[in-house]
């Protein structure tokens, strides 16, 4: 089992977490949506896998490059 990190590509705050821990996602699926400057920027799964943990909650401020979720593939 390899772990893979999902990172926010922008500075902003977590708007909506649209997946759940334990959920199977495919590469390209939206895990959560970050809001910055009135834009909603999705955090997408780079590979298929299962969501192991979220490291943020909705409304948490995040910075560019911050790890927001861990996936197991």
């Amino acid at each position, binding site marked *: 089992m390899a772990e893979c990190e999902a990172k926010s*590509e*922008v*500075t*902003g*705050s977590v*708007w*909506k977490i*649209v997946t759940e821990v334990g959920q199977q996602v495919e590469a390209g*699926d*939206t895990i959560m*949506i970050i*809001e*910055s*400057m*009135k*834009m*909603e*920027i999705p955090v997408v799964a780079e590979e298929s896998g299962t969501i192991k943990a979220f490291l943020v909650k909705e409304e948490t401020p995040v910075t*560019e490059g911050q790890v927001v979720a861990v996936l197991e593939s």
Partner: protein
Amino acid sequence: MARSYHKVVVANRGAVAARVLRALSEMGIRSVAVYSDADRHAPWLEWSSEAHHIGSAPARDSYLNQDTLIALLKQTGADGVHPGYGFLAENAAFARRVTDTGAVFIGPAARWIEDMGHKTRARALAKEYGLPVGVGTDVLPSEPAGILAAARKVGFPLIVKPAGGGGGIGMLVARSETELLAAFDKAASLAQRSFSNSDVYLERLVDRPRHVELQIVADNFGTCRHLFERDCSVQRRHQKVIEEAPGPGIMREVIGGLADDIAGKLGSAGYNNIGTVEMLMDADGSFSFLEMNTRLQVEHGITEEVTGVDIVKTQVRLAADEKLAEVLPQDTKIDGHAIEARVYAEDPRRFFPSPGKLEVFRPPVAAGVRVETGYCEGLDVTPHYDPLLAKVIVQRGTREKAIDDLIEALGAFEVRGVKSNIPALVTILGSDQFRAGAVHTGLIGELIK
């Protein structure tokens, strides 16, 4: 009898607050500006007769806080509210609360804001008024058989869209029935989580469409005209980046006839104040209704530059019961060509937001170059609001000259401290496709990789 204003609240921030405050000042109308913690030192506050602090930086605590704004309206004795664009500009409940105090809401009647706010309802209304509407469905049922039956009427490829939201969230393309059922589940779940409304519907996918919109101007007495079209095809993430008027390569008799027809129909239906009818233009030159924005548009400036009509002042006067014939010249014509580039605080390749401090911010100063901004050097660009730093507008006798001079103006625009999309704007404007007028909504994706 037209009313006159004592004082108008500008319930917005940034470039549009600056624009509206300037218009009010030129009209000799006293103004009330509002600001959040983040905008304490904003340059546009100086344009107002009085400025009031309305809360902390997050918009819901300030620019979206209706209670505070209504209280301020009463407290300052103002009798008009200009909502700008964004924030509360298309909030029917806010418009009603303003008019309930006896003040003028500078925008269309609340019922229009409400009707045009829901996508499938707006499409149904447009159809009822006889506007050209693209092939699409009503809100989809949840069982697969019903979804597939609806899809067969539209035809593939198609696009699944949330009915209650915007911004491109939950919009998914499907090219087959299998893809559609998967896309339906994803789009409905995303729509539910994002907008608390899982309604989705289908539209036929138009390949390489252009985005063409009409500026509508109407009085409170059933007279409605248009101020021609704008082409806003150059977009990233479903948001406009470069706009121009008139639309390149569109035959005047085609767009003119359509625009007259649509304005006539909206006038008969009682549309009032200003608005914008957004349409998709297919590769075969046919138009279909997309949505109607019941407010001032970000890109109104290019229409002002080619028609000589001040749209903000027009809007303020029409809201005070002046007649269209008194406000607009008898005959409006297109003079030359105007292009607007939106300078955003975002990286020029992937267009991700880039908040930060404006260490250097020097917009170009040149004859015939119009810059609309709400920022100045030294200010912070926060993640709380949209990334627009400035709009740079150039109007010239020909499209070619406008492109050249806009590229030159953008080249002279110095921004440091945040990333800006200026390099991308210059690449797009200078591309063979843009110069040839071969614009479409996927152009940025083709030019910038």
